């Protein structure tokens, strides 16, 4: 029997790694990848909770479905924007998209 | 006063605000219509003010007369049955202040017709200010009191920054920010009073009757006193006053120094002393100390000013210091003196600014050392100015003396040393005013100013109204004193006779 904590700690680590990625990366797409990792951690959490603590209604699973769906949509949308940026600036490097500041 | 008079109280602030609205719709080219509207409405306001003053019945035992109230917002959120009311009413102090406003706006309107640029906008803002001032004096609901209080500050920035002179942007910004910063404390104080009273209403009459813990009173009275006091030019938060007044256009200086600074002192009475009497008694000595320091400080600072308006500004600081001394005495004589001083100083400082404006508009100069012998070139100007100076330095027979006498006496009752210092301040006041008078009016006329003309007819009329008021209070103060002293004696708990 696998204790719930296993999943939770794993998801925590995954979330932290994703967060690290968001902070450390310079490419918009790599940041997106890191965000996806975080969302994956979220899904894991939801599903774990649903299975262990909410077996009758398993709302967490539903939530995870929505999360996955929307995460995918987000990637698509974000890529659209990245493309526009790239076309204007010839770079997907987020550091360079910093004309708006102060 | 009857309830009908209550509607006149409403008219007092509704009329100027309505005029402001009307002017907005008026095409700016219609100068004569503008003059007709403002002239008429200032006369009506003056008439109503005098009427209200006369109608206030000081023999009655009612504190507030002419009370008219409508529910405005109730049973919402934290508000209880009476919640926020649109409630007006007048006490003796308010009646004196209403009269003051009526007089000053009458003169202020007349002298403002000289303005050539964006005159309409000027009058719109001026009348909003006046409406706010009247509203503050008659509102009996703390919410509306504060609303009107802020309304009177609202147009200040633009009035000074657009139509002012010299360092007008600096002066305007400083004035506005300091006054608004000060109202933080009032704001907080009002919240605390409401919360502590726990009756779910902003009705002042209810709040006066409510119980407040001594600790709360001791904490929040100084907040309100400082908040309102800043508008009253309380040391060391007076710094906006000289700069602001120096920069402001004539009528604004008149109204601001003449009336709006009094709103500050009025606020201390209304929100501070009347609501939190224990706190007021506790902090009375501090108020007196601040007041006397301000009186001396302002007077000594004024000694060294060469700009007439700056001098007048510091003089205002000094004279408002008397007001705080009077309020701090917490006895009827001293506080009566404080209110009288509010009235007296309002009139005379308005006169000063009117006259300084009268010369500045022509000479574009108001440095004392640049003038001499002006009594020859502009005799009326000089006479008015000297009368104002004499009133300011407390010459008997003029308004300043009556007020200062009461303050001195009130102060002497409790703190003879303070009373002595206050009287000494009068001597310093004499020094700078007479020095200035001797410099500017006497001596040989400088050829540089031979082109100057006497005051315009409008300025003469305005100055005459003000001088007559100075004389009226100076020679026959009983109508004022009866109203003020009765109110104070009847209604302020914690005040000794």
């Amino acid at each position: 029997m696998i204790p719930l904590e296993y999943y939770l700690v794993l998801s925590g680590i995954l979330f932290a790694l994703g967060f690290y990625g968001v902070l450390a990366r310079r490419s918009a797409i790599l940041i997106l990848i890191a965000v996806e990792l975080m969302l994956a951690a979220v899904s894991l959490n939801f599903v774990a909770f649903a299975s262990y603590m909410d077996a009758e209604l398993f709302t967490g699973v539903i939530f995870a479905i929505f999360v996955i769906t929307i995460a995918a949509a987000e990637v698509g949308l974000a890529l659209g924007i990245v493309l526009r940026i790239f076309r204007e600036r010839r770079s997907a490097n987020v550091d360079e998209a910093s004309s708006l500041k102060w | 006063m009857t309830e009908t008079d209550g509607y006149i109280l409403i008219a007092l602030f509704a009329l100027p605000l309505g005029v402001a609205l009307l002017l907005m719709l008026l095409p700016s080219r219609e100068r004569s219509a503008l003059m007709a509207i403002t002239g008429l409405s200032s006369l009506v306001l003056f008439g109503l003010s005098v009427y209200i003053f006369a109608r206030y019945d000081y023999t009655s035992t009612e504190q507030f007369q002419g009370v008219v109230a409508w529910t405005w917002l109730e049973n919402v959120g934290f508000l209880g049955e009476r919640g926020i009311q649109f409630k007006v009413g007048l006490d003796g102090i308010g009646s004196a202040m209403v009269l003051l406003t009526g007089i000053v706006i009458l003169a202020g309107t007349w002298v403002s017709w000289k303005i050539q640029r964006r005159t309409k906008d000027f009058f719109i803002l001026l009348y909003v200010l006046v409406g706010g001032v009247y509203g503050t004096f008659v509102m009996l609901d703390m919410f509306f009191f504060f609303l009107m209080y802020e309304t009177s500050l609202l147009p200040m920035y633009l009035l000074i920054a657009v139509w002012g002179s010299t360092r007008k942007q600096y002066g305007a910004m400083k004035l506005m920010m300091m006054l608004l910063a000060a109202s933080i404390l009032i704001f907080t104080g009002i919240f605390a009073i409401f919360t502590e009273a726990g009756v779910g209403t902003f009705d002042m009459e209810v709040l006066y009757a409510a119980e407040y813990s001594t600790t709360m009173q001791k904490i929040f009275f100084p907040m309100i006193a400082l908040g309102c006091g800043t508008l009253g030019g309380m040391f060391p938060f007076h710094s906006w006053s000289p700069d602001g007044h120096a920069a402001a256009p004539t009528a604004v200086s008149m109204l601001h120094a003449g009336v709006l600074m009094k709103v500050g002192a009025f606020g201390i009475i209304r929100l501070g002393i009347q609501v939190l009497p224990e706190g007021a008694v506790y902090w009375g000595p501090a108020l007196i100390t601040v007041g006397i320091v301000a009186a001396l400080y302002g007077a000594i600072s004024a000694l060294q000013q060469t700009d007439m308006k700056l001098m007048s500004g510091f003089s205002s600081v000094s004279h408002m210091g008397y007001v705080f001394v009077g309020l701090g005495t917490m006895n009827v004589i001293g506080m009566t003196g404080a209110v009288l001083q509010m009235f007296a100083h309002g009139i005379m400082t308005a006169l000063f600014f009117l006259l300084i404006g009268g010369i500045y508009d022509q000479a574009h100069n108001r440095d004392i050392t640049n003038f001499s012998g002006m009594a020859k070139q502009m005799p009326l100007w000089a006479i008015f100015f000297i009368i104002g100076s004499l009133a300011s330095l407390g010459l008997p027979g003029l308004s300043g003396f009556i007020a200062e006498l009461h303050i001195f006496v009130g102060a002497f009752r409790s703190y003879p040393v303070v009373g002595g210092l206050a009287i000494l301040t009068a001597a310093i006041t004499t020094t700078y005013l007479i020095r200035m008078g001797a410099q500017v009016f006497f001596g040989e006329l400088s050829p540089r100013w031979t082109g100057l003309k006497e005051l315009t007819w409008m300025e003469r009329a305005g100055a005459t109204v003000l001088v007559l008021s100075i004389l009226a209070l100076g020679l026959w103060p009983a109508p004022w004193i009866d109203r003020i002293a009765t109110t104070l004696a009847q209604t302020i708990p914690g005040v000794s006779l």
Partner: protein
Amino acid sequence: MSDLNFNYALLLPEIILAATGGIVLLSDAFRRELKLGRNMLPWITVAGAVLATLASVAQAGIVEDFAGIVLVDAFTTFFRVLFGLTLAVVVIGSHEYVAKQIRGQGEFYTMLLFATVGASFMAMSTELITAYVGIELLSFSLYVAVSLAKSDPRSGEAGLKYVLLGGLASAILLYGLSLVYGAAGSTDYATIAKNLSEGRDGMHAPLLMGLTMVIAGLGFKASAVPFHMWTPDAYEGAPLPVTAVLSATSKAAAFAVLLRLFGGPFLPAIADWQGTIAFLAVLTMVVGNLIAIQQHNIKRLLAYSSIGQVGFMLMAIVTISDASTSAVLMHLGGYLITNLAVFMGVIAFYNQTGSEEIADMKGLAETNPFLALVIAAGLFSLAGMPLLAGFTTKFILFQAAAYGGYLWLVGVAVVASTVSLYYYLMVIKQIYVIQTDGSLLDPQAHDVVVPRWRLTWTGYLTTATLLVAMVVVGLWVAPLAHAADSAAKALFG
């Protein structure tokens, strides 16, 4: 498990909006075939918004839930009307702007419509999944709308920042929600409230983490410091009407969620989050108002100013109760009106001059006194000056917080509010004090005739309406207050 006999009429306003979105999208795509000009698009949108608003008003008296996931009550109605009117006003006021500055007008209006749908769901959901989806619909629509400016590189950059940081915030929010779900065992608000008040043993730490992350995630949507960093950039980069929606609909929706969440399911755990939000509130109002002092772009200034406003409104969450909710809803109403007035004014200004710089507003009082009045009144109202909506609603909001026992917080708020006046005055200075040639006015000189320009009729319509609304709310707040109060009472039973 319920059956399928749902009363879909409850969702009529959202259905109308979504359908209008579809119609707009399609009629833009097939405009040649339909022989419709693009000029029709805004009016279709407005019609949808107005219809939706009417539908919401028609449901005013209803209190009924839909499948346990959304609830139509006074609270919902309040926000629906708010959103609907905001949308209508923004579209009417900005259609000239959109025609010139936006790529893909059909998409643009669709985004605004969908955003409103999302906001509606945020306000009416009583269940986490629905709320989340609503949040994402609103956010996605705005990600797109922000990036839709034509040939303005700032737009894309703003969109990128918004979408990447928004994704991060979503992740944080979701993680928080997952922990809350774990700790409370449900996504249904009522159940969460029940479970939290029972106080399950040993789940305090995850719940705390969860609440904190929820606050962070929603704080991003509401732009609370330090989750506000996207706000000024997105505001500046976005097309003006989108900025208006960002500052109005988006913010209000975030607060709707916050109120629903913290006034309902999270209320039993108030001790766990009150301090956190108080801290955020202080930080938000101080930082927002301080940075605003240094701005020279009007949109950016308004962004920081709106951050400051968020700080004020967060106070109501700190002291949450029916009283403070009622107050914050009222303030939201007043704030929306005021903010829209300013934005409509700025849009009209931009349409004429093509500038967003504060310095370019110099002499506006002479070239267009009416617009100057609108903008100045709006700014004064934002600063909380009297006779205008801002004063009254802010007074009541602050009083509510004081009444809730957070007088010190109110103290900070009032100080921050005073600072805010400074930068509003800087704008007003440009408008009224500086003349068109950059000089100061000499009160002695005679009037100079400056060529004037006029607004379009829609510009006049929106600005004048909002101006009047601002004054009306300022002087006669009772209708708004009662609506807000019944909404708050609906939330708190």
